[in-house]
């Protein structure tokens, strides 16, 4: 072998030894299974999917908040829990009207404020604005959140991975607050139809839409203050669109029920009905009995010997008695006025020309002086609310 050939052999062995040293030195690095697309996969697992999990939990909270507020408002007549209608409450149930005034709930504003409050507590990190509902959706504008993850330095990639996601949401509640508009229309129709009826509950029961029920939603209370002559009633209304709310369990939903109270105070003073008269020899007079009228400031009791007045009822007293002749020898009429504040509590010992309140009825003692036993007389009663006098509905005969 010449010198030149020996050099070539040594060079080859030298290269082999060098490569062996290289592979031994870099063995770990060469044989480690580096994940292809490690940066992207790390980003996907530790940023994107993490954000998706956060958004999923938040969506569940947002849905629960929407459903809870919807139910709370329905059971509180459209107000937030603990909030009271400007028209007042009956048995902790908000009134939607009072006399001539309406206090329909400002549903969207109430929902926004209550839902915002709950979101702040349940998702403290979230800073939501423009919280509102449209149709069946509960929406809010959220801020952009950031997930910051660290990729291990051995990967030779930039260590910091940042993912920004939007926390704004629109959650389908399966329920629309538009229902309150429909309920408002139904309430107005009911009030208009029944408020001026003496027996307003009979009218209400006949006129109630099918999804309405008289009484509270817990089934305990029905009409309130009926004995005091007040004309207010509680109602439990089922969702007219048969909306149901999720209970938090798959396949289980509960019906939406609205609890509200209505005031059926008449728009004008109602006539006095069911007047009865009995003679009381001991008192030397007649006891005139009629139901107390909640709005009346006083009562006017008319009696006359001009019997043709009967044909003019029902009508205004002034018109009816204008038919009585001016000549007292032909006919006369008299009246007595009883003010509300002059009405005495019920008593067995009654005095003439005094009125008593007994079991919701007014009992007035009419003195018979000047009346002849053998002559027929007619008696009628009207109520007076300070501004106007009710019509005179009917006459009853004074009988000994």
């Amino acid at each position, binding site marked *: 072998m010449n010198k030149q050939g020996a050099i070539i052999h040594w060079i080859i062995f030298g290269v082999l030894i060098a490569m062996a040293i290289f592979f031994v030195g870099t063995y770990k690095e060469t044989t480690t299974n580096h994940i292809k697309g490690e940066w992207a996969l790390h980003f996907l697992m530790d940023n994107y999917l993490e954000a998706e999990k956060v958004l999923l939990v938040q969506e569940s909270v947002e849905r629960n908040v929407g459903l809870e507020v919807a139910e709370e408002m329905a059971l509180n007549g459209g107000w937030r829990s603990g909030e009271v209608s400007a028209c007042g409450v009956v048995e902790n149930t908000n009134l939607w009207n009072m006399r001539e005034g309406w206090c329909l709930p400002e549903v969207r504003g109430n929902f926004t404020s209550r839902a915002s409050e709950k979101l702040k507590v349940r998702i403290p990190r979230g800073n939501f604005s423009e919280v509102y509902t449209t149709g069946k959706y509960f929406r809010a504008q959220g801020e952009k959140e950031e997930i910051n993850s660290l990729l291990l330095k051995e990967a030779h990639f930039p260590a910091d991975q940042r993912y920004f996601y939007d926390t704004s949401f629109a959650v389908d509640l399966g329920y629309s607050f538009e229902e309150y508009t429909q309920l408002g229309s139904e309430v107005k129709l009911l009030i208009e139809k029944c408020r001026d009826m003496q027996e307003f509950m009979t009218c209400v029961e006949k006129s109630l839409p099918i999804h309405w029920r008289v009484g509270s939603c817990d089934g305990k209370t029905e009409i309130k203050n009926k004995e005091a002559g007040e004309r207010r009633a509680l109602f439990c209304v089922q969702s007219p669109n048969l909306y149901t709310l999720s209970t938090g369990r*798959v396949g289980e939903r509960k019906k939406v029920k609205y609890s509200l109270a209505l005031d059926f105070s008449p728009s004008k003073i109602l006539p006095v009905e069911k007047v009865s008269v009995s003679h009381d020899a001991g008192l030397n007079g007649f006891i005139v009995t009629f139901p107390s009228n909640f709005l009346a400031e006083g009562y006017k009791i008319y009696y006359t010997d001009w019997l043709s007045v009967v044909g003019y009822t029902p009508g205004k007293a002034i018109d009816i008695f204008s038919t009585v002749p001016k000549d007292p020898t032909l006919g006369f009429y008299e009246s007595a006025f009883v003010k509300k504040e002059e009405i005495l509590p019920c008593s067995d010992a009654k005095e003439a020309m005094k009125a008593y309140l007994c079991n919701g009825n007014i009992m007035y003692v009419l003195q018979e002086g000047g009346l002849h036993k053998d002559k027929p007389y007619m008696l009628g009663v009207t109520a007076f609310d300070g501004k106007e006098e009710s019509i005179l509905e009917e006459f009853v005969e004074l009988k000994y």
Partner: protein
Amino acid sequence: MMQGRRGMMDDLFDFLFTVTMAAFLLYFVGFVLNQSAAGGAHASLDTVADAKRLDSGINNLRVQLYNGENLEQINVSTFVARSKVLGGRVVTVCGDYLTKTDCEKDVVALYEADDSTSCVWKESSKSCYTFHASRGGG
């Protein structure tokens, strides 16, 4: 003359030796690099499959949410992490089982460690539900 011939033979052997060694060397280098690349690809595919499993797990829970389930009280990360693939489908909760047998046997052992919870099949709806003994159902 003889010496010149011998020198030529030496050069020929040197050449053949160099070619052989170079070929072995390249095979070796190629093998090492190939193994490394194949291992990396395999690891990547595993990670992608895992990401898909987790993503499907999240979507399965989202379906449960739309069906009325309350996810506020549960640990979503735990549910997602324990999702398992069954016949190409990812099963995260009982509702993801499609057959009565899979449901009643809880074949991917979703609630293996939880004695109070199991999967029950409802014939009326042909669906699998999670039964919580403590909540009396649902």
